[in-house]
């Protein structure tokens, strides 16, 4: 009977096989763990919720001490943010993230094929090399890039960022796609070869459909990292090509410390990543564990 209640609150697979007497976790413990999980989840979520709550307040209500949970709604923060001209940087961020992500997938997918399905010699070394470039801190190469861009008039040009973001995310994408491609059954490819399919056809029509979830999760992660990037964008852009994170930092310093505005701006800039991440949670999990460990 007590196991019945446990099952509804959802303790492990206790009742399976009629072994209920064997390991009856007291239901209280299950309830406790559930409550604990909720508390921890709420704790981690609260700063985000607070950001949203404060963003919808008048400045005078936002800076209240002690805090008020329910204050009248005001769009003041958002109005200030959108009056400050955030559209060009938001659009720049969108362009840089989407185009670089597309480029990464376009280049990383064939490379992953060469590293997993019909592996080149020493494919682990190559993969090792790709990953090792991630160990080069971006900051260690930024000065020559800056000087080069200055000499070739590429400073403040969104294409420079696109190219850099592409190289920044390539290793991770190759790594992820390699592990996803390793799951494609060899027989499928042999069949395609017997039929005389070219490499491009094989990739497009045989491999890609099978690993679509892998491609999607790699793309999602590349998008997030590009959208979030600050250092390169800050050093290499100024007015025309500046991205949303750069705009965010400048917005705060030039507007003074006004809480509702800061929260509204932070929320709007985070929104694309939050939306994409929430929508594709499973892909995110799959991608982050990279199928690397099976």
């Amino acid at each position: 009977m007590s196991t019945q209640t446990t099952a509804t609150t959802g303790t492990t697979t206790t009742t399976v096989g009629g072994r209920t007497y064997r390991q009856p976790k007291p239901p209280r413990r299950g309830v406790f763990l559930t409550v604990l999980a909720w508390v921890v989840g709420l704790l981690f979520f609260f700063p985000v919720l607070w950001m949203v709550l404060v963003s919808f307040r008048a400045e005078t209500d936002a800076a209240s001490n002690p805090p008020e949970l329910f204050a009248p709604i005001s769009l003041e923060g958002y109005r200030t943010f959108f009056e400050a001209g955030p559209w060009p940087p938001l659009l720049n961020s969108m362009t840089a993230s989407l185009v670089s992500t597309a480029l990464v997938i376009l280049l990383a997918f064939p490379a992953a094929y060469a590293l997993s399905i019909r592996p080149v010699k020493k494919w682990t070394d190559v993969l090792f090399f790709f990953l090792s470039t991630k160990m080069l801190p971006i900051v260690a190469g930024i000065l020559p890039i800056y000087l080069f861009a200055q000499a070739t008039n590429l400073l403040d040009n969104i294409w420079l960022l696109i190219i850099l973001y592409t190289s920044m995310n390539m290793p991770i994408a190759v790594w992820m796609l390699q592990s996803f491609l390793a799951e494609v059954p060899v027989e499928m490819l042999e069949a395609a070869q017997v039929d005389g399919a070219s490499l491009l056809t094989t990739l497009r029509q045989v491999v890609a459909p099978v690993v679509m979830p892998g491609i999607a999760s790699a793309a999602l992660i590349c998008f997030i990292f590009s959208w979030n990037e600050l250092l390169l964008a800050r050093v290499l852009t100024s007015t025309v090509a500046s991205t949303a994170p750069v705009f965010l930092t400048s917005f705060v310093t030039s507007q003074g410390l006004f809480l509702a505005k800061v929260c509204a701006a932070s929320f709007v800039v985070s929104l694309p990543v939050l939306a994409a991440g929430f929508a594709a949670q499973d892909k995110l999990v799959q991608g982050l564990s990279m199928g690397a460990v099976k």
Partner: protein
Amino acid sequence: MSSSTDTTSVGTNPEEGRSGVTPPARRVRTRSDSWQRRIPLLPALIFVIVMTQLPFLGTIIISFMNWNAYYPDERGFAGFSNFARVFTDVNARSAVLVTILITVATVLISLVLGLAIALLLDRKFRGQGIVRTMMIAPFLVVPVAAALLWKHALYNPEYGLFNGLLTLVLGENAPQPDWVGSMPLPALVAALVWQWTPFMMLILLAGLQSRPLDVVEAARIDGASEFRIFTSMTLPHLRQYIELSTLLGTIYVVQNFDHVFTITAGATGTANLPYFIYQTFYTAQDYGRASAAGVVTVLGTLIVAMFALRTAFAIFKEEGR
């Protein structure tokens, strides 16, 4: 000419000979075959080599130069003097220490928290999906935005949430600490831990969910305690996932710029190496010294990476086909 030796070595490689062809024909075939194998790889490989190795080569060259943009006439060869300055500079040495401190503290704390929370979420309970979604949120906030949120909405001594809560609980005379001012490093680490714990949790949760449950069930029926199951079944199974999340976490936290730049702006001994280099190059315009610091950063990172990559390498070996 090296191609002929190359061909034979390719031909003798057992891995290559998937199709059973007779030796004479095979030599020709494997050669074109090995190129066919390489071609899809080359665009990505060449692109990455050009985009990562060339700039670093540039950094190495500049690190041996006397080059300050404010004194363009004094540009020239400097030998090791930039490196000497980096190693004797108090700020540079502090940056190294701060980088290590921030990285180790952030990765360790997020890892332990992430593991605990992953275990908590790996059970079926009401609202499991909602709790997971809430947990993921910090990872999905743009880092600069997260840093701004912590600095202004949470840490601010006058109207931040933390001191507001203190007032709410303890009344008018509650202490109102200046969080960032009085403990800049812990303040930075706390904000970073908040952002990175969900990342660790996600990877570890994926690991937990790939655990073969029937074996655990069998152990449980045999009367193994939960603690025993955790230490001798769950943890060994999670090892690779723990290593993977540590590796990835380290790569990203070592490079952290956004939080240091936003929350403390490197003040009161919180400048890490990326911020120190940014300042030396961007504000002080001392290209030579910034590059030397960059080279030192890479060497330091590579030493750590050697250990970390060996771990990652073990993962590939085990799943390699």
